């Protein structure tokens, strides 16, 4: 069986022999006047075969562009193979995909589509047209004039004109329908409206209005690429329109397809969601783009007790169930697993009644009966309008951490979108030093830097206090009366509540023995006196952040 199938003049489909893979792993090769364009590079597993297939059409060096239309790694994880096989051209991709690719460790030249240009080849504007998304959350499309084909990554895989018909899924069937109509011939084209490249129209290649027979195809093209249509749809097409509406609203189904197609490495095995690193990149990209969004951090309350009474596996199931609930109720939003029991829901576009909406969501979670045991959730809401400073992503993280911690202190089961935290609710640092002058200064400075700090000069008193107040960070000098810092650390490690509190050690002489002993007790931050306060405060901050993330 040939791996490169010629579909139209200048258009090949590169696919794998088995029909099962066909939907997921279609790549297309388009001949342009100068070189070739590859639509979707394909997954690593199939990369070599696809390269072989492409070579039957043209040497790899002739490929000038690889366009990645799908944001799942299935569409791009073989990029490095293409590059070693001789690809030196540019990548065209959506910003989301660019992030993913960069995270995949691939360094390539990107064709920047944000600048507003639509053509990949100046001077040959209509040969291969980039269809820009009209709606946030959609990926871009590619329209090939010569074959009259539209490629889009909206459906978890690049879909060319030859969609197989074995698909039972209603959403895919609608797609199928649309594609069939498009593939009838090179009759439609999209055109940029003068002066505003983001607005385009779909018009017939010949003549001024779209023939009635081609309206479904035009509508489909419009629905998928978000361009405006000059002609109103005729009433005869109502069933198709309804189906397309359903298609748009059943993002859920589409997303499931996306889930299935994605690389397991980026997903959290327990919940099936994209994990923290993906979420980080996603948010960072959102921030960079300056788009308006809201992040809701949903956390199952009392996770430690649940872990203790149910076991980790059952808790994983709870998280999975929570992910299901959120996916069902918030189909429009993007869901990630942030850390442990925290799921992150990102919605683009600001909404006025978001807080009430999340309140309802919280109540729905509490009343949902699919969980193995009734759970409550805390939701920390951060709006993009709150983010400030040079690094909005860091401030998002800090706000989220602060609010989640506060929710934890307040006992959970609440939604919080404020940060004006009263002093008694801030993180508690315990400082231990026998030198009262330095201890007092340390406390004063840490308070000044925004930590709530308690200072203790004697080891015995410190242990008592620790049991009572459960600090989140301990800073201790090695030599203390009664118990030295090592003895205190040993006792902390023996205690169920205190063993994972981060610990900073101060010492007069940072000798090898002190370091070895500290490391054996899991202390990795050792400061030699005189201590640089800036560094100490920085390390304290990062340790507090890490302890929150680990919780």
């Amino acid at each position: 069986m040939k791996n490169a199938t010629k579909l139209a003049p200048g258009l090949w489909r590169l696919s794998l022999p088995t029909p099962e893979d066909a939907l997921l792993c279609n790549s297309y090769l388009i001949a342009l006047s100068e070189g070739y364009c590859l639509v979707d590079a394909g997954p690593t597993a199939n990369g070599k075969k696809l390269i072989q297939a492409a070579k039957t059409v043209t040497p790899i060096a002739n490929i000038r562009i690889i366009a990645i239309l799908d944001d799942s790694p299935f569409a791009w994880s073989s990029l490095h193979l293409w590059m070693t096989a001789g690809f030196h051209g540019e990548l065209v991709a959506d910003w989301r995909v660019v992030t993913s690719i960069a995270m995949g460790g691939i360094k390539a030249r990107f064709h920047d589509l944000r600048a507003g240009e639509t053509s990949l080849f100046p001077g040959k504007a209509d040969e291969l047209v980039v269809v820009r998304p009209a709606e946030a959350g959609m990926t871009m499309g590619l329209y090939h004039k010569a074959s009259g084909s539209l490629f889009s990554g909206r459906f978890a895989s690049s879909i060319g004109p030859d969609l197989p018909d074995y698909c039972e899924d209603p959403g895919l069937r609608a797609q199928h329908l649309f594609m069939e109509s498009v593939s009838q011939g090179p009759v439609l084209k999209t055109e940029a409206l003068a002066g505003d490249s983001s607005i385009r129209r779909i018009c017939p290649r010949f003549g001024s209005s779209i023939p009635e027979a081609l309206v479904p195809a035009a509508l489909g093209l419009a629905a998928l690429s978000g361009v405006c249509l000059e002609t109103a749809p005729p009433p005869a097409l109502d069933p198709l329109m309804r189906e397309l509406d359903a298609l748009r609203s059943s993002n859920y189904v589409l997303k499931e397809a996306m889930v299935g197609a994605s690389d397991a490495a980026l997903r959290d095995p327990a919940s099936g969601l994209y994990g923290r690193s993906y979420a980080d990149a996603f948010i960072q990209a959102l921030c960079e783009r300056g788009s308006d969004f809201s992040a809701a951090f949903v956390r199952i309350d009392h996770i430690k007790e649940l872990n203790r009474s149910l076991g980790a596996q059952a808790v994983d199931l709870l998280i999975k169930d929570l992910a299901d609930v959120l996916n069902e109720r918030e189909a429009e939003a993007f869901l990630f697993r942030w850390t442990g029991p925290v799921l992150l829901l990102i919605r683009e576009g600001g909404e006025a009644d978001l807080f009430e909406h999340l309140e309802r969501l919280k109540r729905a979670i509490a009343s949902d009966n699919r969980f193995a045991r009734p759970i409550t959730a805390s939701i920390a809401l951060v709006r993009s309008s709150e983010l400030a400073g040079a690094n909005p992503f860091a401030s998002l993280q800090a706000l989220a951490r602060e609010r989640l911690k506060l929710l934890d202190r307040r006992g959970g089961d609440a939604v919080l979108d404020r940060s004006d935290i009263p002093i008694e609710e801030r993180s508690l640092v315990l400082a231990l030093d026998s030198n009262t002058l330095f201890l007092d200064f340390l406390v004063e400075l840490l308070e000044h830097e925004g930590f709530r700090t308690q200072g203790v000069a004697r080891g015995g008193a410190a242990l008592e206090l620790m049991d009572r107040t459960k600090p989140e960070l301990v800073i201790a000098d090695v030599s203390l009366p009664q118990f030295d810092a090592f003895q205190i650390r040993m006792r902390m490690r023996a205690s169920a509540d205190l063993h994972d509190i981060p610990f900073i050690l101060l010492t007069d002489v940072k000798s090898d023995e002190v370091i070895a002993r500290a490391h054996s007790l899991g202390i990795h931050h050792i400061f030699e006196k005189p201590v640089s306060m800036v560094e100490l405060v920085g390390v304290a901050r990062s340790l507090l952040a890490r302890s929150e993330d680990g919780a």
Partner: protein
Amino acid sequence: MAPDYSFLLSLAGIFLVLDLAVAAWVFIVKRRARALYLVRTSRMKRLNRMIAQGDEEGLAREFAATPSALLSHLRRLLEDVSPGPGPVKAIRGFVASIDLVGYAGRELRSRRLDRRIEAILALGLSESGESLVLLMESLQRETSTLGRLVALNRIARHPLMPDIPALIACLEAGAARNRKKEFQALSGLGPRLHDYFDQAGLPPGDTGLELYLLSARSSPTEADWERLKGLALERDDAIGEGAAAVLVDCYPAARFIAAFSGRPEPRFRIPLARLLGMSLSPEELGRLDSWFHDPAYREHGIAAAALVLKAHPDAVDAFLAHIGGPDKARATCLSLAIEYRLPGLLYHAKAPLGTELKALVSALLDEKRAGIILESLSVSMPERTRLAYLGFLRTELASRPEVRAFLARHLPAGISAELSLPAPEAEEDKLQIPMKGRDKVFLAGLVALGLAVFPAAFALVNWRDLPWLSGSELLYRFVFDFQWLFAYYTLAVNGTYLVLLFLSMQKLRSQARLWECDLIRIISTGRILPSISIIAPAYNEEKTIVESVHSLLSLAYPSYQVIVVNDGSADSTLDVLVSSFDLQPASSGTGLTGELASMPVRTIYRSASLPNLLVVDKANGGKADALNAGLNRATGDYVCTIDADSVLDPQALIRAMFQVVASEHEIIAIGGNVFPVNGCVVEHGHLQEILLPDEPLARFQTVEYLRSFVAGRLGWTVLDSLLIISGAFGLFRRQAVMELGGYLTGKGIYRHETVGEDMEIVVRLTRKDREEGRGGKVDYAYNANCWTEVPETWPALRRQRDRWHRGLMEVLCFHRSMTFKPRYKAAGLLSLPYFFLFELIGPWLESLGYLVLVLALVFNLIDPMIPLTVFAIAVFFGILISVASMLLAERQILYFRTKEFFKLLAVAVIENFGFRQLTSMGRVWSNFQFFFVSKGWQKGSRKGFSSKVAP
């Protein structure tokens, strides 16, 4: 009679009033201390807040109000907080904005050392050239050791480079005794000096060269190698040695060996042995021959061979091959290097013993290593091997009577018989110390003389009336006059105490002022602080030894080692130590005997994980013998002797050594406070809380210890005649003790034993020092604390006091020739007479006084008010001394909670009714027994540390 009586009465009244006044003073001091504390704390908090917030204006206001307090605060803070961005930058800015130099210039002219030091430290805050100039000036003017050290430290830390020729001139002007310390204080300057010497070339004088060595050590370069090599080869003095030491420490060992191998000078030869030991393979042992054959360097060769074995633990066969070889000296030295492996070799040996093994055993026997032979006989080996070994030993021992006698004494009868050793001679108990007849006569005569003085004087005064006084009148007059004597005696003894108390107060204040300057960080830089070896003899301490050693290992001191000497414990003390600290037998380098004679050492253990722990296992010989065995292994500049069961304050060593560093004289011994640990909460070998003991007996001792340590000993140091440092905690210059021949034991050079070894060593140290006119001093650190268990039952207390008193008497006898000899200065003119008068004869007089008091009351001999008044004087004066001591102790020595403090105050009063009288009668009884009953000291029964948790 009436006016006399009223005089006594008014005396008693005066003392009562004084008592009340001191008690009131105690109250006021307590209250004032609290108020002062609050003021200081609030200022500290205020200043810290200003610094944290960068409030420079506020700081300027504080500087205008209390400059010294502000600068001292900043200086202390900058010891812990490094310069850099943030708040510290604000401090620098503020310091640059004020007239620091003007202020410090005024303060530097102060007569008080602590103020001058604070001014020098404040100057260190500034980074300007003016401050450096002023620092150099202060160094030129300063004569005190501590002041110079601090000035040098600040000069070294100043960002600007000082004028090196001027600095050299300043260093040369300093006392030679402090030369090393002063260079250490400058060590921070090392890397910067390097650039200077690179440009200026080698300086002319010795001081300059030493400074050059300091810089070369901090960053040795290729150019330095040649320069140092030249110095090391040319100079035959301290400079040459210093250069050689830098070459050894800072360049690769192979390079040093290649360059200097074959050089005969000790400065090359001794490190060469060590470097060779670390780098040689077992096949190349022959290269150490030149060390083995030279008696002067033999021990270094042995140490090197031991290092080879340490690096190649499996290479015993290579050693044995040499031992079986013809070269006698090499065989002997290698035998000594591997002697601790003998038990292991025997364990694996087969029936006919190999010639090498035989050669090893006979070499060890030749060297009289009886301890290791004893140890080897306790190894379990196959019966045939054992018989072969015993047979070999039998023939070998025949020609070695000394080892034979030792083994006969220590081996069980069964093995003794198998070795056909003679039955051990009926040796008297080691701990029984017979007193020489003439010593007894001397002491008894002295006491008799002391007691006869009063009747003689009585007779002399009343000789006219004697013939016609009736018996009862005579008795009346005698008793009456005796009351006077007793009153005068009481006044004298307590008056002495009072004088000492005042002297103590002076000394304490000057020590405390310096200590409160917080100079620990400064004297901890470089190697200014002398290294210390703690020697802890342990005898049957299996219950407490592990906790004690743990606590000893976690003291706050930069360089010290702990030597536990297991004095032939009958329980499992050694096993507990071996298993808890991962101990492994190790060669001590010089074999198992040392410079000082002691009972044979069986094995020396080192810990695999703790490099500063050493355990010496030896045959039982008493505390002094164990201390000598420990002294043989000690390497520190000072040795600290403690009881294995006492709890040392973690700061005790550094506090004691601070006084040593600060002293203007050579300190040969320094003591610290010892307080009862009874009742205190001890956990993990650390004192958690200071509480009063529950037992009244122990409480009385708390007051007694407080009085004698705080009030007495500090005062004696002012008079330069302190002769007692408690055996529970004392530090001695190791070199001085080694020169003396260590502690007094039957095996030592004096062939004399004593139960008062702690006092004896101080007296002997002082004696030798005065005889050689060296000007060494015995000092006392007012705040170095040690806690020890005191007896809680009367019989145990009696035994302890009996031992003390015997010890005192033995020491007095042994060193009686020092008395009233001006060459021994205050020690001979004041201290020893005091001991004779108040410690030897005094108790007799006192007891007699109480006896007469009771008799007079019972038989109504005289007006009962008179003896009662005399008694009241004694009691009120006693209370005055006790309460005043507590007043002194309030300053940084002992922290009791207010409630406990007042409880102790009550005890200090009650103690004078009964306890003091009983202890003084106890001494009389000890004296009595000493004269008429020969008795050794027995160890009091001790409990383990009570691991009580505070309620």
